[in-house]
């Protein structure tokens, strides 16, 4: 399944799509978007790349393997819930930095939680798609 058009397109599109997925994640708290959609877009982008360039190439781009993404996502989400415990607040209460940061905007534990969701969803979709592709 190698087509020059697809592989050229995807090489151009991949960074854009990944950037877009992060953009979706970051603005998710205020505009349409969020960790679920972001993760899926990222997974779709890398899946397309894998279709064009092969599973090996996709793994190279990913650096970590999808299972580590899943584990990392779960730990991030859990960690975001645990942070408030250290400050004597209930599990998963939202904590926010007092001022907005440039680029990231308003930052708090819910954003961290969303990041965890993003990583996990992307990892899940990639694990399923890539391991099916490897069977080919």
């Amino acid at each position: 399944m190698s087509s020059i058009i697809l592989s050229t397109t995807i090489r151009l599109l991949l960074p854009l799509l990944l950037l877009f997925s992060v953009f979706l994640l970051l603005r998710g708290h205020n505009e349409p978007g969020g960790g679920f959609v972001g993760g899926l877009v990222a997974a779709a982008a890398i899946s397309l790349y894998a279709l064009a360039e092969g599973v090996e190439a996709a793994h190279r781009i990913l650096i970590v393997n999808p299972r580590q993404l899943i584990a990392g996502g779960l730990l991030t989400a859990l960690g975001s819930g645990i942070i408030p415990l250290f400050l004597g607040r209930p599990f998963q209460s939202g904590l926010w930095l007092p001022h907005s940061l440039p680029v990231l905007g308003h930052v708090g534990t819910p954003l961290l939680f969303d990041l965890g969701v993003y990583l996990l969803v992307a990892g899940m979709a990639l694990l399923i798609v890539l391991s099916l592709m490897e069977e080919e």
Partner: protein
Amino acid sequence: MLLAVLCGFVAALFAPLGFRRFPLWAGRFAPLLPLGLFLFFLSHIGPVSRGEPVVVTAPWIPSLGIDFALYLDGLGMLFALLVTGIGFLIFLYTPAYLGGDRRQGTLFAWLFAFMAAMLGTTLAGNLITLFVFWELTGLCSYLLIGFDHEAEGSRSAALQALLVTGGGGLALLAGFLLLGGVVGSMELPVLLASGDLVRNHPLYLPILLLLLGGAFTKSAQFPFHFWLPNAMAAPTPISAYLHSATMVKLGIYLLARFSPVLAGTELWLALVAGVGGLTMLVGGILAVLEHDLKRILAWSTVSALGILTLLLGVGTPAAITAAILLLLTHALYKSSLFLVAGALDHGAGSRDTRQLGGLARRMPWLAVAAILAALAMAGLPPLFGFITKESIYAALFLSPWEPLLLTGLMLAANGLMVTVAVITGLGPFLGKGAPALAAYHPLPPTLWLAPLLPAALGLLLGLVPNMVAPLLLRPAIAVVQAAPVNTVLALWHGFNFELLLSAATLVVGLLIVLSRRRLLALLPASWQEGGFTQDGGFVLLLRALLRGARLQTIIVQNGRLRYYLMATIGVAMGSMGLTFLESGGLPGSLAWPSGYLHEWLAAGIIVAGALTVTVTDSRLGAVVALGTVGYGVSLVYILYGAPDLAMTQFCIETLAIVLFVLVLYRLPLFTLLSTPVVRLRDACMAAAIGGLMTLLMFYVLAQPLVPHVSDFFLANSLPAAHGRNVVNVILVDFRALDTLGEIVVLAVAALGVFGLMQSRRSDGEGK
């Protein structure tokens, strides 16, 4: 006191380790726990004997209003002292009996746990506590009977005991719940004070029957008497402890404990006294037909339990006094005789009464113990058993119900007891030595000391009966009778009718002993060997149950996924449909839809896609149609203000199509496997369910929407959670815990896929 009850469980935890590391010292220290507990309870005897119960309460399940309550009164004290006192003897005896068995630690763990459970049952201050510990004793009994778990007989005996007493336990629970409901409290003191309320309540009959069901199964009353002799598969000290002195007395405890609440009616008299009388005769007759020491003792235990039940059934002050006396006497002499039987088994290598004889010279102390216990059993002066027997006769002779009949039956039962006493206590030690006993070896001292102690205590109590009467017996009698008593015991009552009856008992017993050989010879040959199992009915019942279960499995578990699915969905839909019908149809009519063309278009795309998936016979076509459905749904989300959903659905649909394409050509072609009739049936069922769903939605949509929760989210999204996208705020902040759960599900699903692929791969490599 809480600690006193529960420390047995703690000891049970450490027993296996202790016995593995220090087998010798653990065996020496183990008896100290029951001894310490015995002394502890003894130290409370002052206030308890003055009629001031010790009450301890600790919260247990506060959300259900259930407390862990202990209640130590006269009756509880008697049982607590029996449990710990006899427990001490058993713990002293067991290490020597088992020798160096490597499973000693396990046995002791169960024993410790059993002792704690017994204490908990007899000292329980409310019905729930009582029930929990009651079941724990049954569980320990199961484990202890099945201790020799490599033997088929032990396992089936253990299971039988568990099923019988467990079934009774269920009846007991139901009875307790009814009783608690009637009285409005589960606490023992409240219950004990509301006897009249319960006796006049319409639910009295079921309560009584259920409680008796629990008591009769535990105490092996007819027709549940069959499990007790089979339980003799347990090691002898276990039989002595559980199946003669303590656990089987729990049924008696229950009758005694609830006498103030339930006794005093015609029904009580007829049921309890009737069953007790029958049991005492059946047990006595079967006892003299056996040859195995332990089985003889087991049947005579059944008989003694029958006498106890009979006395509690009669329920006059004199009868209750006699019952409490017999409770104590029987525990002392029967545990002693069991331990003697165990020692004989250990030292002489046999339990068959036809082989044992003339061992008095070789085992002098054991002989003393056995003879003292036997005399107590036979009810001869100056032993405590004599006082007991006199009081039984006195009680029955003055019984308000059939005094002559009861006295006559008791004469027969006691005559049989005399016979048993002669066979088990005197037979092995007197007379000629049997030649077959080559296996003889000398006994360790604890093996004769443990049976000697209770036997000697029986003698001591007989000589000075009023030493314990005011402290121990009188308070217990008072509790059962729910009125203060002033029992005075004496060995010598003068020449009266009871003495005459005692003499007659002896004569009857000795006559049976003398004629036993000849009587046995008259019986059919198959009866000569003894070993009566009375569990034919039980075995049949069990077999029928198993057959029924198998039949049901064949019908219900037919292994066809779609029938399971149909049944599940059918039931769910059926109950929903019924609810719908009961509510009286649609509450109002819906407005005729007035949507724009694009809304109708979205709906049309979905329907067309769904129908295409269903009827197409091309796999690719089905995938495309399924994608159409998905994109159609995503269109709906866009149209009605849910851009987040639309985006997610769009991405998912794309990924799903990639997935299907990857797998599709490894999947089988669509094949038509069902006949047209089956397809029509399924189509009708599916259409019916779809229609029902639509109706239900109409129903819901016709109700006004009550959006309290959503209003809260809408109002607080920005001020409290700093987010403008309310959907996202719900997901990552308000309901983040749910989301956490959901992403865990995702992770598991992904790992499941991965695992499936891996397993396939490794299978392939294996080949």
